[in-house]
């Protein structure tokens, strides 16, 4: 099957230097954060790629780069065979691209305008893209969208504050679905929700994928959720992709030491009473990342090469892509 989204060597560097005057007076240096540093992956049509990692690893930046909220510093994003950077020169094709990809944000309290009715919120993309003419057809379309996410058509007359967190996230999903997109970027869509509500939202997302053949990029830090929704999983650490594999392969046989560590760290409800070995150390400051492999200070298998040389992504015969010297040398 062909890839709907193809990302090659994507990078985003943020300038976080102190203001000019401080640099001159206090001799502070310019500072840069490599938020995303050479990430490549492809998402096949109708499947879900999940990106996991701890806070600050760059997963949300990847999401924003993909939908065009940030401009990449390096690398390119191809959507359905077209380079998105090339489309920027033509406003009409850019609009068309925007219609075909949508985003669902983490916080359903912050991502809906509190002064707009649900009709306006869900109807905005329809009006904006000229997909609906006249109030009556807009109302009919919004009602249909709300029903598809398990809300009632009469809810369109209400304001966001009249809904619970889970219902608001459904409104966000309805808004994202309004333009009939093919690709949805979901940035931690359930992290702000309670578990029972999370189950409702995850079930809706899976149903919609099956019915409409949607492609998802799913960002999360919760590995159990990722295991439930994804087909492929990418693990990120300090702006780099360290392992990318099919879900079943990744959870059954994690290769990279960081992936192993993450999997070992999840508290699981079926491990009652047992204890696990906690991992040592914390995520380093991204302003000042370690040399070589960024994970080497916390890695139990690190040697001199890991501290000096950055590991390249290699592909194993099972189709797992992993960036680790220990795996490449067969030490692990």
């Amino acid at each position, binding site marked *: 099957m062909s890839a709907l989204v193809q990302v090659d060597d994507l990078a985003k560097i943020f300038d976080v230097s102190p203001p000019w005057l401080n640099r001159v007076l206090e001799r502070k240096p310019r500072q840069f954060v490599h938020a995303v540093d050479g990430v490549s992956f492809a998402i096949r049509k109708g499947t879900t790629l999940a990106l996991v990692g*701890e*806070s600050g690893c760059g997963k949300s930046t990847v999401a924003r780069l993909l939908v065009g909220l940030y401009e990449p510093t390096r690398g390119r994003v191809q959507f359905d065979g077209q380079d998105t950077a090339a489309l920027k020169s033509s406003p009409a094709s850019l609009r068309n691209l925007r219609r075909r990809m949508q985003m669902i944000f983490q916080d359903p309290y912050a991502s809906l305008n509190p002064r707009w009715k649900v009709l306006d919120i869900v109807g905005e993309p329809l009006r904006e893209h000229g997909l609906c003419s006249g109030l009556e057809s807009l109302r009919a379309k919004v009602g249909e969208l709300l029903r598809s996410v398990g809300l009632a058509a009469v809810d369109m007359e209400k304001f966001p504050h009249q809904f*619970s*967190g*889970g*219902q608001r996230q459904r409104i966000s999903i309805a808004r994202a679905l309004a333009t009939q997109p093919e690709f949805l970027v979901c940035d931690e869509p359930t992290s702000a929700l*309670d*578990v*029972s*509500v*999370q*189950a*409702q939202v*995850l*079930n809706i997302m*899976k149903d919609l994928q099956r019915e409409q053949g949607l492609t998802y990029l799913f960002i999360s*830090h919760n*590995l*159990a*959720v990722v*295991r*439930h929704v994804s087909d492929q999983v990418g693990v990120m650490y300090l702006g780099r992709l360290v392992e990318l594999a099919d879900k079943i392969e990744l*959870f059954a046989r994690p290769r990279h030491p960081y992936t192993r*560590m*993450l*999997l*070992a*760290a*999840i*508290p*699981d*409800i*079926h*491990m*009652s*009473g*047992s*204890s*696990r070995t*906690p*991992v*040592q150390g*914390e*995520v380093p400051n991204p302003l000042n990342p370690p040399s070589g492999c960024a994970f080497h200070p916390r890695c139990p298998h690190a040697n001199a090469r890991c501290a000096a040389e950055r590991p390249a992504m290699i592909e194993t015969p099972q189709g797992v892509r992993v960036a680790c010297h220990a795996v490449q040398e067969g030490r692990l």
Partner: protein
Amino acid sequence: MTAPLLEVRHLRVEFPTRRGTLLALDDISFDISPGEVLGVVGESGAGKSLTGAAIIGLLEPPGRIAGGEILLGGRRIDNLPYEQMRAIRGKRIGAIFQDPLTSLNPLYTVGRQLTETILTHLPVSAEEARARAVKLLQETGIPAAEQRLEQYPHQFSGGMRQRVVIALALAAQPELIVADEPTTALDVSIQAQIIALLKRLCKEHGAAVMLVTHDMGVIAETCDRVAVMYAGRICEIGPVHEVIHHPAHPYSRGLMGSIPAMDDTRERLLQIDGAMPRLNAIPKGCAFNPRCPQVMERCRSERPELRDARHTRAACWLHAQEADS
């Protein structure tokens, strides 16, 4: 059977508002034995944190205890005057909150906050207090504890701050620790470290723990018993293994089924339709009845109390029938 360390009897907490009184906790009863870890789970707004706040005497006004009693080591503590409660808080009951940044004073060094707590509650000299502070930081796994004492909270990372908060809570050798979502603000790898630390230290110091969290994984790994809360009431309480694997209350069953686990292969998660009721609109009878898949006529009119159900205690009419027949 030893006497319980903490006894909560028919606790009611109310919030008087202009539009009438909201009943936030309704008839909560449970015990914690010395050295035991009790987990409290439930969704946001179920009253978990409020139960913790009532025990440590830090209910935010206008919230107030409207009925019932709380006993620590056999003595009532819910009606103590402010100063006496202050002496107990920190000395006999330690508290750990969710956000480690807001529970430390940003203007004082970590060392000063630790020694101050120790000096307030223990009869020791300033030097002894300092030595004890260093030892506490070392116990919580903070490297270079001696130098770290001179630093301010902002110089610590999130995980390190939570270690300081744990050190503070343990400073005066309390018998009970109330930990309210101690790992929610942390990343998974740090969360694992903090949970292991909390578990080890409480065991070493012989402290009982009331662990409030919405993360069932944390509960499963840490607790001896667990209480499931819904709409201001305990709907099930029992040994952690039984509640997770053989939940008796339909809500606990739904809650367990809605959690994606690492080893399950289900296409769809179990879902409880609807949402928890607001405090001003708690349904008559069993509060869960509008969402319950096994609702009966009796559930809509009569409120079930906690009763023995197979391996746990559950507040559900389904188990009353079992007992009758």
